[in-house]
Each structure stands twice: as C-alpha cells, then as structure tokens.
C-alpha cells in the first residue's frame, strides 16, 4: 500500500491529540482486565510448579488432591494429548511439563476447586517424585560440549561441530570482504559483552477465564496481545476446531511482547473440560517472573575497525543467546539488527540460539535487538573515544540511508536515521555542559517493524456515526489512532468514530499485536476499509442524483459531483447518505483484508546524561532525550508515550534489572522488590523529539514506533557511565557493585 504521493496532504485530525476512547473507563476503574471477569459456577484454578531447575518426573500422585473436599478437577500432562506439530508441542510442554521439568517454576500439574484457598491446599497434596538432573542456566556454559543437555535432539544441522546439543540453531548475515576491511582500519577494537535476562514487567499478571462445555464449544476470556493466536494454540492443544473456541481479549495491563503466547490458557481450558465448570486462573507475581517469558540473556563478541577519520571499514559480531528450555529464533533478530544503522562495505554477524534451564523466552519489545546493538554501539563509542572523534559525527559519517545495502540483506528505502542524528546534533542537550563524575552517552536504535495479517470492518451507522471492528488488543492507544485515521479518511470528526477490538468469532484472522505492527497495518486496513465504504457512499449519492458513479467524488466528508458537467447537486454528507441507506441499497460498510508488507524500518537516537557517585557506584540519570522517526505521528501523545516508556524500560535494563539465578538453578528474585524496575523517583523527565520521514509503504506514511525506543538506552547509558567514570563496562546491568568495582580497579 503505497504512500499517497499526490497528497501533500494537510491532515485535519491525524496528528491531533484527542482523548483516548478507553480513557474514562480506565480512570474510573470500570475497564475490565484479565482478572476482572467472573462466570456463574466459576472455579479457581491453580498450578503446581517445579521447585527444581531440571528433574525427571518419576511419578505424580494426585489422589489426595482429588479427594479433597471442593476439588473438581486435577490435571497433569496425562490429560493433554501429544500434538504432532513440534511448535505446538513445545508450547504445550511449556504450559504443562511432560516427562521432565526443565526450569524452576515449570508447571507440572493443576487443580480447579471451589475456592482459591482450597485450590492452594490441593496443590500441597500432590506428591511428585523427582529425579534431580544437572542443570545449566548460563549461555556460555550451556554451549560447552559437556554441558547438561536440556532437551535431546533439538539441534539443527547448521550448528557446527564441537558444541553441546543445547545449541539449537545458527545463523549468519552480512556482505563484503572482512579481511580487506580490517586491513584498511587504523584502529580495531574487539570486546566481549554479557547482558542479563530481563522481564517485560507488565503490571497485570496473566489471567484467564475458560469454559468448555460437553459439546466442545468453548469460550476464553484472557489478557493477551493476540486473541487469534491464542485460539490457534489452544484449539490445537485441546484438539478442537477454531470455530468452536471463541477467544475474547480483555483490556490488557501491559504486554510488551510477553503476552504473545499462552501459559495458563490451555490449562484452564483443560480444567474446564474435565470439571464441566468455568475455570479462572490468575497468576501470582512470583509465577509471572518464574514461568512466563523473559528476554534472552546474551554473550557477545564484537570487532570493529575504523579509520582515523571515523569511517568504519569492517564490522563483525558473534552473538550467543540463551532463550530458556525450548528452541527460539531470537538471535536471528539480533544478528540482523546489530549493524542496521551503518552503511558498511564489509560486515558479518553470526548467531547461536542456546537452550538452558530457564523459562522459555518470549518477545520483549524489539526482541533480540537491544543487546546486539548495545554491544555494537559500545564498541563504536570506544573507537570514537580512542580516536578522539565526536561520536555523533562518526555516526552521521557512517549512517545508513536510502539506497544503503543493509547489513542483513535488504536495500533501504526512505529512512529517518540521518535526520534523527542531525536533530540530536542540533539539540541543546548535545552541547550542554557536564560536571565532574558526569558523562553523556548516545546510541542509535533500530527495529524492522512488522506488517502481517490484518482484517478490519468499518460500518456506517444510519445516524452518521462509524463503528470500526478490528482484531488487535490495544496496548498503547491504538483505538485512538485507528479512529483518527478513519475520521481523517472519511472526513468526519474523531468523536463520531468508535473502534472496538473484536473477539475471534466476529472478525477474520489478525496477527498478534507485536513488532509495532498495529498502527501501521490496522491503520492501513482501516484507511482502505474507509475508502471502500466511500466508494459505496459515492455510488449511493450517484443513484440519488441519477448520475454516473464515477462522476461523484468524496471531499470533506461529503459526496459531491465531480465537476460542473456531472450536474449541480448540493453535497451529501456521510450522515445524509447513511440516513437514507435503507432506501438506496441497504447498510453501508467497508472492509479490508491484507497480509501487509512495507512496514518501513524505524530508527531512533537517544542522548543520556548520568552522574555516577564515585564512592558507591550509584548511577543517576540526569537528563534524557529521545529522537525518533515516526513516519507520521498519528496521535503524537501516544507516540511520545511509546518513546518514553520504551526508554525507561531500557534504562531499567541498563542499570538494575536482571534475572538472578543461584547455584541451585533457582530464580532468586521473583518479585518486584528484587527485580528492580525503575520507580518514578529514579528518573528525570524523558524529553522527546518526533521526526516524520514518511514510510513509503503506508498511505499516510506511518511507521511503527513501539519497539525502537527500548534499544538505545542500553548503550547510551553504558557509554555515559563509561565516560563519567573513565573506565569501560561491558556487562549489563551496570548495578552499583559492578560500577564501584570498575572504579576501584581503575584506581
């Protein structure tokens, strides 16, 4: 769907900042989230989880639990089938362990009872005999040939010899002659990096309410980023037809990628089937940390060569990501994103995905990209320091632009990197003075952005209002953006449009809300659905006027004769056409279905100022500015919101957030007290600068904006801290003991 080139368009409502349609519901406490729904006769479900990192399940005795008064169903893997499809089998095995428990917190049984208290009591009565196995949680340790094997037979052929079977897959990207490139360099720096696993940290724990009656018809209410994908997974696991399972997405209390798969939903449905009653499961915060999908942790080697003037001559990255106990493909994203910001003659990235005894990773905002780009941007910064070059000027000198052959294959179309860097360079933040113990860091960020399967219905109501039915849960204000685009295209006020998120029985398939795809893809489909409704409305006006359909145009929310030759008729508004639709052919609607491409990549640049306490290693963020290309900011408040929220998640990742495992393989910080997400008093204001370089693949030029902002903070802060203390840190998080240790070693 091409950018409307003819439209040196003056937008009327797109780009304005109206109140979000779900605002009042959310500020009054009326909005219904995953845990807020109840059903008559509902039971409470609870899940038994492994206390061990790795163990064979010798036996499970559920008889005492079943005998407890109030218990209506107990399930284990024996109550599930074994799906033929490997992916589905992995999803199921992650929800309910079969044969082995693969990580601390892995589910292996569940009960449904008349109250939460009884369910909890019943869990304590399930007797499990475990044979404890050796475990591994570190990525480098898991790759060694003698490492404990998490799952046998999961390694693909392209993994080279000499590695543990925990290494499931390998990938490689790049172009050019590396040796020749490094030969041209005046300075080559090679460094190794590690980053800890982090969690999305959404405030709403996973929750669902499932019913499945004897005739195989089911209903599932859950907090998810993709009700259609939940249906696919649950119908596959339960062995029921998609049409028989209606999945409704609740309001969602944060996801950031972590609610793109299922953890409790198939369990609740299985309990509902076995008990014949609706079953609700709500995860505790501890369960969320132990048994949902944090990010990968990584170990990386980066080598970059640069000339004295700052031109990068060659670049190489080796990325090793552990994604928990089941195979994943996250390193491919990192390997493709690592050098995306640079126009390079010689570049190579290699990636290895690795199994460990940790929960299976799930997407987290630009999955795979932040750690790789952190490592690359750290080395680029160190090169600039050693060559005494301005880090922004160096990035501008090497910046990818339209026509650049990207490091991962495609040739870039219009992109906003250069404009974003120039905006940062011109901003007062970049030249503001710094005091002792303070440092300024910068980093570029990148995300591909997704399109994908999308389906929108747009109904013209007879009173002149418009209803839009779309299929993607609203995680960042998308209902407002979609309504704005419909209002823009139809030429009516924003408040005449209401957008709702449909259940799986009310609309065709929509991909998950992920990869920053919704404002782009659903927006595009909404614009096209509006255009198809406009065509119908023009036809109705033509009919009323008795002229040819192609002699009618749509302008300012009205059908008008195309010119003087078409006849002299006063314009008919949308409301006027809608009011008489029953007499002119019936209801008016537009719809559009597409597997959208052309999402248009996204670049951002962040500037961070920090002050480090030289006696304690504590880092305070003093000032922070985000520069990002949004293509077209449909609702600028929520574009800024994405930029600010992503930046703060990245700040947490850089400074304090991490999964901490003990020598016993158990997670030690499964709670918000010791998993330290930033609190309000940790932060300054997050300033934002939106650039608008239209995406050629969208009628209004829209690009996704949600992922990119989590990418730059890691290196921006690492570069700032390193400059503040005069010594480089190559590991995240930069928790105070590490920073103080570096300061004391420096002397």
């Amino acid at each position, binding site marked *: 769907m091409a950018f409307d080139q003819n439209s040196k368009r003056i937008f009327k409502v797109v780009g304005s900042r109206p109140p979000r349609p779900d605002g009042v519901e959310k500020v009054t406490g009326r909005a219904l989230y995953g845990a807020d729904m109840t059903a008559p006769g509902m039971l409470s479900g609870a899940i038994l989880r492994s206390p061990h990192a790795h163990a064979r399940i010798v036996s499970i005795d559920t008889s005492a639990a079943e005998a407890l008064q109030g218990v209506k169903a107990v399930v284990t893997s024996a109550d599930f089938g074994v799906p033929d499809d490997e992916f589905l089998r992995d999803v199921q095995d992650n929800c309910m362990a079969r044969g082995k428990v693969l990580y601390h917190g892995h589910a292996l049984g569940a009960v449904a009872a008349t109250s939460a208290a009884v369910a909890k009591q019943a869990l304590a009565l399930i007797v499990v005999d475990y044979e404890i196995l050796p475990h591994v949680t570190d990525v480098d340790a898991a790759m060694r040939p003698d490492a404990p094997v998490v799952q046998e037979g999961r390694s693909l052929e392209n993994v080279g010899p000499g590695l543990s079977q925990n290494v499931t897959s390998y990938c490689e990207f790049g172009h050019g002659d590396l040796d020749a490139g490094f030969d041209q360099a005046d300075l080559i720096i090679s460094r190794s990096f590690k980053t800890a696993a982090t969690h999305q940290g959404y405030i709403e724990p996973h929750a669902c309410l499932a019913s499945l009656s004897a005739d195989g018809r089911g209903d599932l209410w859950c907090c998810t980023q993709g009700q259609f994908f939940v249906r696919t997974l649950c119908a596959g696991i339960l062995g029921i037809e998609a049409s028989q399972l209606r999945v409704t997405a609740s309001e969602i209390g944060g996801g950031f990628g972590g609610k793109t798969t299922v953890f409790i939903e198939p369990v609740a449905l299985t309990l509902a089937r076995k008990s014949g009653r609706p079953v609700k499961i709500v995860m505790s915060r*501890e369960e969320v940390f132990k048994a949902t999908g944090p990010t990968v942790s990584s170990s990386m080697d980066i080598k970059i060569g640069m000339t004295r003037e700052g031109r990068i001559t060659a670049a190489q990255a080796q990325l090793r990501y552990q994604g928990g106990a089941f195979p994943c493909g996250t390193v491919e994203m990192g390997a493709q994103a690592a050098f995306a910001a640079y126009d390079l003659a010689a570049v190579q990235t290699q990636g290895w995905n690795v199994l460990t005894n940790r929960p299976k990773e799930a997407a987290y905002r630009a999955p795979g990209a932040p750690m790789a780009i952190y490592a690359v941007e750290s080395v680029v910064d160190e090169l600039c320091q050693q060559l005494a070059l301005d880090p922004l000027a160096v990035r501008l000198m090497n910046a990818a632009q339209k026509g650049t052959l990207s490091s991962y294959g495609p040739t870039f179309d219009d992109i906003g990197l250069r404009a974003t860097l120039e905006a940062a360079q011109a901003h007062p933040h970049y030249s503001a003075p710094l005091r002792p113990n303070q440092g300024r860091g910068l980093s570029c960020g990148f995300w591909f952005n997704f399109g994908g399967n999308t389906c929108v219905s747009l109904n013209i109501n007879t009173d002149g209002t418009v209803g839009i039915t779309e299929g993607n849960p609203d995680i960042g204000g998308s209902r407002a953006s979609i309504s704005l685009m419909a209002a823009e295209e139809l030429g009516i006020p924003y408040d005449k449009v209401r957008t709702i998120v449909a259940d799986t029985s009310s609309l065709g398939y929509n991909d998950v809300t992920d990869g920053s795809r919704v404002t782009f893809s659903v927006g595009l489909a909404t614009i096209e659905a509006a255009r198809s409704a406009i065509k119908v409305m023009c036809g109705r006006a033509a009919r009323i006027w008795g002229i040819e359909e192609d002699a009618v145009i749509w302008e300012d929310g009205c059908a008008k004769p195309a010119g003087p030759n078409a006849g002299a008729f006063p314009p008919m508004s949308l409301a006027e056409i809608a009011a008489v639709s029953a007499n002119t052919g019936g209801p008016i609607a537009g719809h559009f279905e597409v597997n959208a491409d052309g999402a248009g990549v996204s670049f951002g640049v962040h500037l961070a100022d920090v002050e480090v306490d030289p*006696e*304690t*290693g*504590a880092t305070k963020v003093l000032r922070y500015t985000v520069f990002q290309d949004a293509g077209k900011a449909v609702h600028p408040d929520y574009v800024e919101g994405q930029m600010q929220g992503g930046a703060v998640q990245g700040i947490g990742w850089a*400074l*304090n957030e991490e999964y*901490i495992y003990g020598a016993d393989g158990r997670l*030690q*910080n499964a709670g*918000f*007290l*010791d998993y*330290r997400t*930033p*609190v309000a*008093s*940790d932060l300054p204001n997050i300033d934002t600068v939106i650039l608008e370089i239209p995406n050629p693949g969208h009628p209004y030029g829209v690009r996704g904006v949600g992922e990119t902002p989590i990418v730059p903070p890691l290196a921006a802060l690492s570069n700032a801290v390193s400059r503040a203390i005069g010594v480089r840190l190559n590991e995240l998080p930069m*928790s*105070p*003991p590490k920073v*103080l*240790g570096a300061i*004391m070693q420096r002397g």
Partner: protein
Amino acid sequence: MRYERPQTATQAAQLLANEPGLARILAGGTDVLVQMKAGMVTPDLVVDIKKIAQIGNIQSEEGGYRIGAAVSGAQLGEHAGVCAQWPGVVEAAQLIGSTQVQGRATMVGNLCNGSPAADSVPALVAANAVARITGPNGTRDCPVADIPAGPGRTTLTKGELITSVFLPARPQGAADAYLRFTPRTEMDIAVASAAVSLTLDAQGRCCEARVVLGAVAPRVVLVAEAAAALIGTHLEPPALDAMVAACRAACAPIDDKRGTVAFRTQVAGVLAKRAAVIAQTRAGAKS
C-alpha cells in the same frame, strides 16, 4: 487462622502465650502479610494490637518521646517534636517502603521482623532507644540493641510483645542521621546502612557518639571503635578516615542477590562518614 483484637497489652500477651500453634502479631502488617502471601508463615493466630490503648500514640516523657508500637512511619514523620529531636530516627523509619507502606509500617514491626537490613534499627540503636515489653509475667524494659538475635529472630520470649520504644531526651548540640544504600531511590532493601548519633560540646567538638551499621552482619553492629575515633575531634578528615576504617573492620556481611561482601564493606564506610557529617551539621545548627 484466628484473628484477635485485644484491648490491652496484657490480654495480647496472654493470647500469644496460650496459643499452642504459630502466633503472629499484627500492627502495620507490611511484613507478616507478605510472609503469609509467600507461604513462609501460616499463622494459627494473628493478634492485632492496634486497639490497645496508647499503642498508636506518641507521648512526651522525661524530655524524650515514647513511640507506641503501632505508630506508623507516616505518623512519626508528622510529629514535629520527634522530627526535631531525632531526625535520623525519623528519616530511617521513613525509608521503610513506599508512601503506602509508610501508612502502615511501624518501627517496632521493623525491629521484630529481625532483618539485618531493617532501616529503623540502626537509628534506634544509635539513639540508645529502649523497648518496653509486656509479657505473661509483666512489663520490662530492654535496650533496642538487645532485641535482634539474628536474621528473622529476636530475644523476645513466647508471649512477649513490644508495646513502645522510648527515645531519650537530647542535650544541646546533639543530632543523629541515617543513610542507606539501595540501587533504586525507593522501594528497596538496604544493601548497607549507617546511623550516627553524636553530641557536640560548646566548641563544636564531638563529646559523645554512637555509630551503628546495618545489613553488614547477622545483627545490627554498634561500632564502639568508630565512635571512639570521632570523640574528641571536630570530625576532621583523619578522624573520619579512622572511623571509616573502624566501620569496615566491623563488617561481616554476606554475598547475596542484593550485594557483595566487598561492596557492602566499602559502602558501609562511605555511608557512616556521610551520616556523621550530616549529624555534625545538624548538631551544629542546634547548638
């Protein structure tokens, strides 16, 4: 689980003494409810002490203040007299948890929870605070310093409860301060902490001092050598350096998810030095 809400401390002590199962005292509840949620404790009896007369009050006594066991951090912070006399104790109590937790959490609960990282305990020990205890056999007073027995344990015997802590009167030129280190600015547990209470004579020389460290040993540590390093000085750099060295020598911390031995030891000294300077400044302003 039974829930009881006695009207007197004696009744509370009897309930606690007579319970054959596990009994827990409920004041602010900010520790016990977390432990119940985590399944760490499953009490058979919870004794809510908030209906006991005076237990929620702050009273003047002999020039000092008696702080009821159910007085929350927020209440303490609103009391101008205590804030003026014991600013270090108040700032320590006010570091326990969020605004929400401050609405409930009490210093006595913080003390009885037995955490080596409890914020208010170093400040109370530095203040020479005395706990008043009611038990099945009557009432006794005990220095706060003698209450902690180790992580999660106290020296209180079955049936005993602390009903108040007493903060003594202050001479001219006396002040205290408390600092802790946490990775975040709020919502965190002390990785190391230090409380300093000192008195300056008319010449501004330190004539009395107590230096106490938290989170660097199984119990709160009163470092006499650190105090000795300050007494008789104006807290000049050599005196502070000696105090820091004494503090670090007194540390016997552990490595855990919140910090390392080396970090805790290093930072405890830094905090003690900074707290001493703050206390000195406060004392100077008062003298």
